[in-house]
């Protein structure tokens, strides 16, 4: 069985990893931990004293560190599992699906922020992958998503009021 565990570079990754660590997997499971670095494209990037390639290099180094840490955690929890890691650059919505397709994965495990009517710009990477994936998918609902969704309109309201004055 081949499982792709897609994590981002935020603290949300721990919730996704916990879902993997706390599960009983078959002995011959292959787990690939994947993270996708999104290049930061902005014309004015040179003004802040860094080229986009330098910034991408830093992002990739940070992501690599996260992958190594995640791999160690999974290997410790599931010593019989064969754990791999992969770092991709691009749009997570397509890169995760492409990685799973190339590897012929049986399942993708990915975190998903909840959506609620008061959240105008939800991060919908998980559901998009759920539609396009070439294998079964598990969306791990992130616990803090509801709190964040509740805070978003309040912040937006303050900004609007400021602008009106």
């Amino acid at each position, binding site marked *: 069985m081949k499982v792709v565990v897609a994590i981002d570079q935020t603290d949300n990754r721990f919730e996704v990893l916990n879902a993997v660590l706390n599960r009983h997997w078959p002995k011959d499971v292959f787990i690939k931990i994947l993270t996708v670095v999104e290049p930061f494209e902005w014309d004015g990037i040179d003004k802040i004293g860094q080229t986009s390639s330098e910034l991408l290099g830093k992002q990739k180094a940070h992501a690599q560190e996260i992958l190594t840490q995640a791999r160690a955690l999974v290997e410790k929890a599931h010593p019989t599992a064969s754990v791999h890691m992969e770092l991709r650059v691009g749009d997570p919505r397509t890169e995760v699906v492409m990685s799973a397709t190339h590897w012929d994965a049986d399942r993708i495990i990915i975190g998903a922020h*909840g959506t609620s009517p008061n959240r105008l710009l939800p991060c919908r990477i998980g*559901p998009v992958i*759920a539609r396009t994936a*070439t294998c079964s998918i598990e*969306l791990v609902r992130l616990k803090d998503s509801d709190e964040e969704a509740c805070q978003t309109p309040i912040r937006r309201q303050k900004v609007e009021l400021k602008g009106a004055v």
Partner: protein
Amino acid sequence: MKVLLPIVGKDDMRLIAGFVANFTWPPSTEYKIIHILPMAVTDEQYEQNFASAKNMLKDAVAQLSELIPGPQISTDVRSGSAAGEIMTYARQWQCNMIIVGHRTGKSIKEALAGSVSSAVAAEAPCSVVVIRPPEVLSEKKEAASEREKT
């Protein structure tokens, strides 16, 4: 742990049961198999649909019990919009996970059925597993390789 298993047709249970049987779940795991009936025009139609749903759920329980010894399985029938009812049920029952089959095809009816899993994946209050049947997987893989070529 509470696991919600919404089923639309008989094939759904085969898919879901295969997935559930592959994993070791905590001993206290509760499973709830639900079927959402479409809105019936007449009472007679509703009763017919309800009776066939009950039979389907009975078979589903038998299928799951064969694969996992001694689980706590209960069933329920609701009527209304499939995605909406699944999410309402998930909130009321406070489940930890929803396992749903992904159905898609060329006809409009099948395409709409596929949108249920997409809606649940996007809006559910808990973790969601979307299971794709093998025939959908091969179609999707072909489409993905074509997309990559272009």
